[in-house]
């Protein structure tokens, strides 16, 4: 039972971290290596609003998501747009931006374990004899809600449909009058908001540290490679595969192999099916 409960929690936590990365890549074919940094930066934004401006927690979260969305959009509009289409340059540029943001915070004195966010609800309950705190239960609910809203958005909203169109076939979408750069800008903003949302849900269980930016980026990449780059449905399924594999490893093998699982999953996927579970990027080449 503990594997089931904490497997679900771990999987949804991974899905929340990765879904923004998958969305941006799916729509704009842009590997946003600043994703982990945006996660940490949003944690620091909420912390700053809460502790410096002393604004209500919910309002702080909403405000931070708007800010992080604008930061993400600005990164695309002022930097990444210039290197769009050049995959290596995109990776280098976005990674450099992330690095600058993270190390900037470290340089600015945001280090140590004293930066924390309050949990939404204090306390815990026992489910079938397994203790679970309310924040983790909320994480599962919010994670599920995000996936549902994202599905509704990309199936019933005009912009969401345009984003999907872009993800399916950029040239055809452009022929129908969809502005590719505008969609990439929206995708980057939305991806940043999703990274920020993951931060506000996950960080109250721990603390805000610069190093998390690098860890979360690796986890997001691992999930997206296994799920298939660009497929957010694949990302969700891969998150469950890796999430459960991690928990089973901790329980039955050894806890220090926890981090190895994600990296192992990348290697296995690249060897057996480079396009991932639901990726279409190299599907044709693989068939050939």
């Amino acid at each position, binding site marked *: 039972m503990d594997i089931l409960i904490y497997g679900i929690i771990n999987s949804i936590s991974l899905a929340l971290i990765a879904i923004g990365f998958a969305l941006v890549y799916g729509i704009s074919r842009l590997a946003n290596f600043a994703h982990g940094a945006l996660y940490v930066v949003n944690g620091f934004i909420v912390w700053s609003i809460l502790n410096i401006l002393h604004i209500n927690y919910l309002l702080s979260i909403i405000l931070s998501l708007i800010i992080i969305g604008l930061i993400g959009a600005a990164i695309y509009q002022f930097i990444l747009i210039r290197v769009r289409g050049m995959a290596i340059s995109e990776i280098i540029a976005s990674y450099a931006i992330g690095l600058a943001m993270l190390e900037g915070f470290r340089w600015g004195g945001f280090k140590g374990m004293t930066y924390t966010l309050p949990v939404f609800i204090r306390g815990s309950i026992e489910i079938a004899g397994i*203790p679970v705190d309310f*924040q983790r239960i909320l994480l599962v609910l919010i994670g599920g809600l995000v996936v549902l809203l994202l599905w509704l958005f990309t199936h019933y909203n005009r912009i969401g449909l345009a984003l999907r169109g872009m993800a399916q076939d950029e040239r055809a979408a452009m022929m129908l009058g969809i502005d590719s750069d505008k969609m990439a800008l929206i995708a980057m903003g939305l991806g940043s908001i999703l990274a920020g949302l993951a931060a506000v849900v996950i960080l109250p269980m721990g603390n805000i540290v610069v190093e998390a930016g690098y*860890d979360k980026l690796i986890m997001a990449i691992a999930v997206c490679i296994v799920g298939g780059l660009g497929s957010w449905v694949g990302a969700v399924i891969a998150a469950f595969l890796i999430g459960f594999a991690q928990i089973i490893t901790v329980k039955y093998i050894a806890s220090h192999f926890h981090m190895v699982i994600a990296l192992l999953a990348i290697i296995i996927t690249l060897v057996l099916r480079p396009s991932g579970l639901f990726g279409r990027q190299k599907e044709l080449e693989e068939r050939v």
Partner: protein
Amino acid sequence: MKKKSMWGIIIVVIVVIAAVVIYYATRPPKIVPGIVLGCPLSTAFLYGWDAERAITLAVEEINAAGGVNVAGKKRPFKVEVIDTRDLEPGVPVSEALLVVEKLILGKKADFIIGGPVRSEAALAAMDLLSKYKKVSILTTGVLTPKYHRRVAKEYDKFKYCFRITGEAVWMVTGEIIPCLLDIGKRFGVDRIFIMIQDVSHARGGGGLIAKIMAKKGWHVIGKPEIYPTGTTDFSMGLIKAKKEKAQVILIWMDMPETSILLKQWYDMKIPALPFGSIIAAAEQPGFWKATEGKGEYCLANVVNAGNAPSNATPWTMKFVKAYKKRWNIEPEGYGTSTSYMAPYVLKDAIERAGTLEPDAIIEALEKTDMMGVYGRIRFDPKSHQVIPSVDPEEGAVGTIFQWQAGKRIVVFPKKIAMGEIKLPPWMK
């Protein structure tokens, strides 16, 4: 004519005198060369930044009092800090070695004090210190007994290396085990579950505790659970501890994520007392606020007295107050009081040696005997390890405290204890 030439002479004399006065008044002061203390520290982490602050404070105090008397000449200390990043996950040891070399060659460090902080990096740096004949005093982080054993084994090569802080074997056998046995006796508990970080000192320390506690008749639950640096979820380990009816959870981790472990412990109401042999997060004064009080009852070993308020020696509270005044926070944890004492010990050795020559300084350091912030400071002349004790009159004393109602209450050793250990209400 005579009158005119008289005036001329007077004017020339005045001009010459004025020129001489102006020259002496405006010439740059004679620069007294400073004694450069090169500090390789992992400044993004507690054991690095607290050391930097403590060294800075000590140097400011020493310089304000006139500096160091080197054979009759007063010379100030100058601090040069470079971030080694050796406590960060994934940063290779070679980075720290580059920093040590840069401090020696680039910054012209006369002495190396502080780090490297990670045991693996400090062990690797020993050869560099030997190569450049630089006397070094380790003040933080490095707990591995290999460090002073190497000095004892190859004295001529590694005689430059001193350690003024504790080491794992004494910490385990002289402090942690007696404290655990005391807890066992007082509360009738004997089931221990060990959670450690995947680093050299933690693996060694955790394994040693498991072995000794088993010999002492305690039930050690399984093998120590090992977590990679940067782990953010400890739920499965805690569930195991609960299922196996652990009564004490021994934690040996120097990563900041240990605060997550304690938050989870509280949220899950695990009926076991958390005992941090090394637990970086819980050491700091800001821990209480950061965990919203969820870390109450957690025991933390801060290795040396003075890293939390106590009355170990008359200098302890004086240091605590000075640190608080300078940095607006109490001494923060392991590495603070030792890093503060290192410049004082070095000053004392330099003044006795009357030179900066390494061999003379080594000889003087070997003869160090001073009452410091955490007790009597002496080095073992063979291994250059500070001599530990549970009595501040005899040697360097450690400190284990417990978080109680927002305060760090020293509970071990008995001679400096400020209160008694308490159990969380859900354990009773």
